[in-house]
């Protein structure tokens, strides 16, 4: 029989008996960050490749979600800080080796740019929302008025329209960094065996892109665009499944600490929620629905979109919670 115990009464809250210092704030932010990254990615990619007309929702309408997502995510992050009053210290230093520092600065730059981009297309947004929501339309019209009347805002918007391509390139690169850094942030913690895999970066990026694509698919009213995005989503889900299977294969062929980490998902407490909810409901079912659509069956777009978004959120909750439980010690 093997026993390992604390003799000195150590019982630090949130660290003993298992680590749990990051609660819902972090997975929520990771999801929102990934969503924003996906939205901005598609917007800027299709803008740069000149396909704005083919994918109008992706370029003009859907990116309005991004600044809100990022803002809510930032609020969640700040709420998570235990030394909240000092949060501004994040911006007094840039640490090359710290993914969190990368993230802080990236978010710092993306936030204003992601607010400007949808404002460029405010008139298209008014047209889009006219038929669905009176209140939103009213607010948008008021903002449009502000942008025309207030001199400084008008000047900023003119500048933005003039240099839109440059902004698009900047946002394109930043969105990739945003999407992938959330995964690299976790994978850089060599103390947590479940996170310590280089697949996590690309996996989070792909998952973020798929949630972005799902959001566009949901919002789109153009048949061609909806079908195209449903195919993009199918491809991204496929890549995600491939990466996840590879990740598990890699863990099983790795050290004991990694194997014990994987055991959480293979008979452990996270088995049902990971394979049942995330994998099946969040990946496989939407994929099947989209394949069915390819064969001509009519599927309301919001169902696979919703499932993918839900799956993305649950996935990050699972990874953050399970990762903290895994350890090298004892």
């Amino acid at each position, binding site marked *: *029989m093997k026993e390992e115990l604390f003799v000195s009464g150590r019982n630090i809250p949130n660290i003993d008996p298992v680590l749990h210092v990051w609660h819902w704030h972090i997975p929520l932010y990771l999801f929102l960050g990934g969503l924003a990254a996906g939205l901005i990615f598609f917007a800027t990619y299709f803008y740069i490749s000149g396909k704005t007309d083919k994918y109008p929702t992706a370029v003009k309408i859907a990116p309005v979600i991004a600044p809100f997502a990022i803002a809510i995510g930032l609020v969640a992050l700040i709420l998570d800080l235990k030394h909240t009053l000092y949060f501004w210290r994040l911006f007094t230093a840039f640490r090359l080796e710290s993914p969190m520092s990368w993230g802080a600065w990236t978010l710092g730059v993306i936030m204003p740019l992601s607010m400007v981009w949808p404002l460029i297309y405010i008139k298209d947004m008014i047209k889009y929302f006219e038929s669905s929501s009176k209140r939103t339309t009213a607010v948008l019209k008021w903002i449009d008025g502000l942008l025309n009347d207030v001199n400084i805002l008008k000047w900023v918007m003119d500048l933005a329209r003039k240099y839109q391509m440059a902004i698009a390139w900047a946002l394109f690169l930043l969105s990739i960094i945003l999407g992938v850094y959330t995964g690299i942030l976790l994978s850089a913690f060599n103390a947590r065996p479940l996170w310590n895999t280089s697949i996590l970066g690309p996996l989070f990026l792909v998952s973020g892109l798929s949630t972005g694509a799902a959001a566009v698919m949901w919002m789109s009213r153009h048949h061609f665009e909806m079908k195209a995005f449903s195919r993009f989503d199918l491809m991204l889900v496929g890549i995600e499944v491939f990466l996840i299977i590879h990740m598990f294969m890699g863990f099983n062929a790795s050290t004991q600490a990694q194997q014990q980490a994987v055991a959480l998902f293979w008979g452990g407490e996270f088995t049902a929620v990971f394979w049942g909810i995330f994998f099946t409901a969040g990946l496989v079912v939407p994929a099947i629905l989209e394949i069915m659509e390819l064969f001509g069956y009519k599927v309301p777009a919001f169902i696979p979109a919703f499932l993918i978004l839900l799956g993305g959120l649950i996935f990050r909750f699972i990874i953050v919670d399970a990762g903290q439980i895994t350890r090298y010690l004892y």
Partner: protein
Amino acid sequence: MVKNRRDFIKISALGATGVAIGSKYLFADNTQQAQKSPKGPFKLPSDFKRTPTYCEVCFWKCAGWIYKNEKGDVQKIIGNDDDPNSNGRFCPRGTGGVGMYHDEDRLKTPLIRVTDKYGKQTYRKASWDEALGVVAKGLQKVIDEHGPECLALFTHGSGGKYFGNLLKALGSHNIAAPSYAQCRGPREVGFIATFGDGLSSPEPTDIKNTDCLVLIGSHIGENMHNGQVQEMSQAIDRGATIITVDPRYSTAASKSKYWLPIKPSTDLALLLAWMNVIIEEELYDKEYVKKYTYGFDQLKEHVKGKTPEWAYGITTIPPDVIRETAREMGKASPAVIVHPGRHVTWYGDDTQRLRAVAILNALLGSWGRKGGFYKPDKAKLPSYPHPPYPEVERSWRDAMGGKYALADLALANGVCDATIPSVTRDCSIKAWIVNGTNLIETLPDRRKTVEAINNLEFIVVVDTMPMEITGYADVVLPECTYIERYDTIRASQHREPTIALRMPAVEPKYNTKSAFWIAKHLAEKMGKGDYFPFKTLEEELDWQLKKIGSSLEEMQRIGVKKLKRPYDDLYFANGEDIEFYTNTGKIELYSTSFESYGFDPMPKYTAHPEPPEGFYRLIYGRAPMHTFTRTINNPNLSDLMDTNVVWVNPKVAKTWGLENGQEVWLKNQDGVFSEFAIKVRVTERIRWDSVYMVHGFGHNRKELSRAYGKGASDSKLITNVMMDPIMGGTGMRGNFVTFLTSKPVGKEVKS
């Protein structure tokens, strides 16, 4: 005479108004700036950044320094490098002593028991003058009606000197410490019978120079006798062999070359078998035995049949292990120690068992030799002359019916027994002063202790914390901690004599006073002020120190002063002629004094009762971060360990379906059960016929906010007391428990 039963009062019960708000706030009316000492000829605590003290957490009394922070608050306590007891390093309890001072659950004000108009008993706050007046009156009444011999003092702390002085001035010699008959008594008597000298404290074991340390009934490392743990560490560095005999895999066992997992209660058989091997294989120190001992031939005859094979059947220790360990001891002789242990009151034949330990040491020639037992020396401090103590016509001894004549100190349980009226006696003890000992947890068979208390006419408790015993007092007097007072000069025995000063680091908190102050003012109220001639303790200490060439001022600066041994007699010199304080003048392997009192002159093995089916022997012990209940509410130390767990062997756990961390209640062979639940620790470190827990938990006093309701009290479950016929020690390891997986309801003896 029918007396009102003493209701067990919770200190916070001040009537309806008190309970609602919360007792803590009601008492804390003058927290920090309570008292200011008048400026005399000596420096005040506030004049120093660090002040010398010696620790009061256990009897080791390590000397150290108390450091204060910039705000003048107590910051930390560290050891004094010149002190041989601690060598500049305190144990965890000493280091955590600051918690005793900061503990907000401390007693804060004198309390007097009153009965309200509804007949409910409760405490009310009182001034010192009023409280001392009530005490003086209560004690005087007993003196007038029954005589001063019916007063008794229980003490286990530095305050005992002053209360003892008072008691002797009043005309009683009934002064008892539970550390005798409940703890080390049998070994004192056993060693005195063999060598003519006891061991006292700290034990003069030369561990740092030993080549072989045999621990039978000692768990050094879990009992944190500072100097001994330090020296054991040095012995490990020197490559000394450690042999541990313990039914449990103790910490010491894990560092031993040999661990003998003995069946509980069979230790005497092993000791006799060792004697057999050592004599038969001639491993003993021949010259030493020839020159200094008496009774070798009788002993040789006595252990003839006690072979390792015979012992194997009793102890379950294989014969070759017994032989091998005996040979190790012989090889190391005379630098070998068969450690006498300290808490040795187990099965009632403990004096004989310690006699066997003493005999083994004598055979191996370790007594008075390097690496064995050195001859300690201690400083002698003069007492200030005072009027002679009155003659005493009777003492607690007379209540013992002629038994326990060999006990050299008072028996706490004896005094307790003498309080219960009996047909064989024409009087009994009527009043108690209790200082620094929680008798409810200390004395086994709680029911008897409570019965005794209910037969008292008066009881006053002087303590720092609201321990269980304070709930039975007529008057509770709050003592300040050692951090806040002066006390007697420490003159403990060691390789070299030293003196250590205790001075306060800060003024007493709340409305607490030192034992000296309490005893002096009480004496004055009772007309015995002449026995406390000095106005302040500083004056008395300074007078004493000046008589031996020091002064209070010097001791305040250095804390510890080393003195010279008058003779170079740390060990016996080679071939020295020595007269031992025994009847024969020699080390008695065959005890003539035991024989003359009708006891076995050489130890015999007797089998002791074994646990009935479904029951397990209750073994208890210490944890290095606690000193029984004294530290149980200390914030720093309860942070390390705030509850005990019951160790259960995995086989037993499987049989009962118990899981690690599961809560159980324990019930003993007399139907008494533990008041609170205790968690199970399933571990291989304990035998399948026993369970183990650390002593000092399971408190039912809500005022002890950190200790209330945590764990089980082993002393509550100790109701079967096996009395040692030779000196009256109370053997406590003959109790058996079983598990209850749900909270027990129904009748049982309430304490």
